[in-house]
């Protein structure tokens, strides 16, 4: 099984990576690049804890082949930051609303929220619930997560 050399952009930096066909994006991020923010929960695309953005859209990195990253822009939790270099507004809102408990699902949850906010400018609560229904939190922090998303949306509108 031959490795393929791919060029990809991860968190704004271009990388040349040698990947095997059966390598997942999650394995490559964690094992080759030490980007351990995305984590493996279920391993079969159901729980959402491995969510990263590919060209702005959320994917399960555990079910995405690394070779699919070729020519794409990958964004992981490590790539998030505010314009001033501080925390991304979504990360800040999760802190302020205490939208996590054990934290295992949090990186995936935040990346899913980034996907949500790139699709909807001002999502309703129903749209937030619907969009995030594929990200599971066993601590049950859902209502705090929704509050965090709503506070980001409110902040964007008050800044505008």
């Amino acid at each position, binding site marked *: 099984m*031959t490795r393929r050399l791919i060029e990809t952009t991860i968190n704004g930096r271009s990388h040349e990576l040698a990947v095997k066909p059966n390598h997942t994006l999650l394995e490559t991020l964690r094992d080759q690049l030490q980007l351990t923010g995305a984590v493996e929960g279920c391993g079969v695309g159901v729980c*959402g804890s491995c*969510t990263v953005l*590919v060209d702005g859209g959320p994917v399960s990195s555990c079910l*995405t*082949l690394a070779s699919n990253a070729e020519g794409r822009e990958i964004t992981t939790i490590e790539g998030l930051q505010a314009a001033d270099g501080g925390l991304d507004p979504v990360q800040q809102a999760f802190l302020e609303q205490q939208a996590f408990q054990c934290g295992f699902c949090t990186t995936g949850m935040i990346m*899913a929220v980034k996907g949500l906010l790139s*699709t909807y400018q001002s999502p309703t609560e129903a749209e937030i619930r*619907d969009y995030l229904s594929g990200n599971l939190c066993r601590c049950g922090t859902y209502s705090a997560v929704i509050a965090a998303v709503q506070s980001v949306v409110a902040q964007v509108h008050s800044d505008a």
Partner: protein
Amino acid sequence: MIRPFELHRPTTIAEASGLLMTLPESALYRGGTELLQVMKLGLARFAHLIDLKRIPALHGITTDEAGSIRIAAGTVHHEIERSTAVRAAWPALAELERHVANPRVRSIGSIGGNLCFAEPHSDPAALLLAADARLELEGAAGRRTIAVDDFILGPLESDVAPGELLTAIVLPAPAAGMTLAYRRLALAERPTASVACRLTVLHGVVVEVRLAVGAIGVRPVLATVASAALTGVPVTDLEEAIRVASPLVGQACEVVDEPGASAEYRRHLAGVLAGRAVRAATELMA
């Protein structure tokens, strides 16, 4: 860890078909949301995956002069949800696509992959059956067009010949007075029961009904007896007809038990959802 395999990246349908014929233990691969899942779980093993993402002909949505919409099989759910052509002609399909699985599946999973995998809970399959969509296939033996009802044979079984690819889904233009609605109930990510209804009303009378029921059996089926009970009915008398038709919907196929939802419950749900779908289709009439 996914078992080792070789990845192939054809750029034409003919090339993909050729690879499929010559490579042993090979499978077509688009989004991988179903395929890589079963490979990871060890339920299926392939030595070669043929990646369809670089075949331009398998991507995009076009409308012909007659108004029928052709969705290339590799088009992802998210794109169908946002297509202005789909939203204008068949808004129920765009709405359905907004709720398929989760956003991660919708951003890379394709409608063609969904149909070929033939998972019995498929949302698009039930709607496309009610809409009388046609499926275009292409392989070494040439091209053919097939109805959804003939394509989905059973659980995880679709009518794809060796070396053949599903290339497009064609939805006819809506005829005068024709609307389409889809209703489902999902206790988890996949629907527990789903019903699609294509309704045609002319001069205040229901002239044609195509009810399709999904998820409750091993494949989506047309509920022909229930549909007949609604046909010829003045719209003003539709509620009474729905009361008669609803219990017939769950009789359209053998209903299976699944964890959290008995066959009896799912049969009941099918009737309730059929009523909702018929009402929703009626409300779409301008």
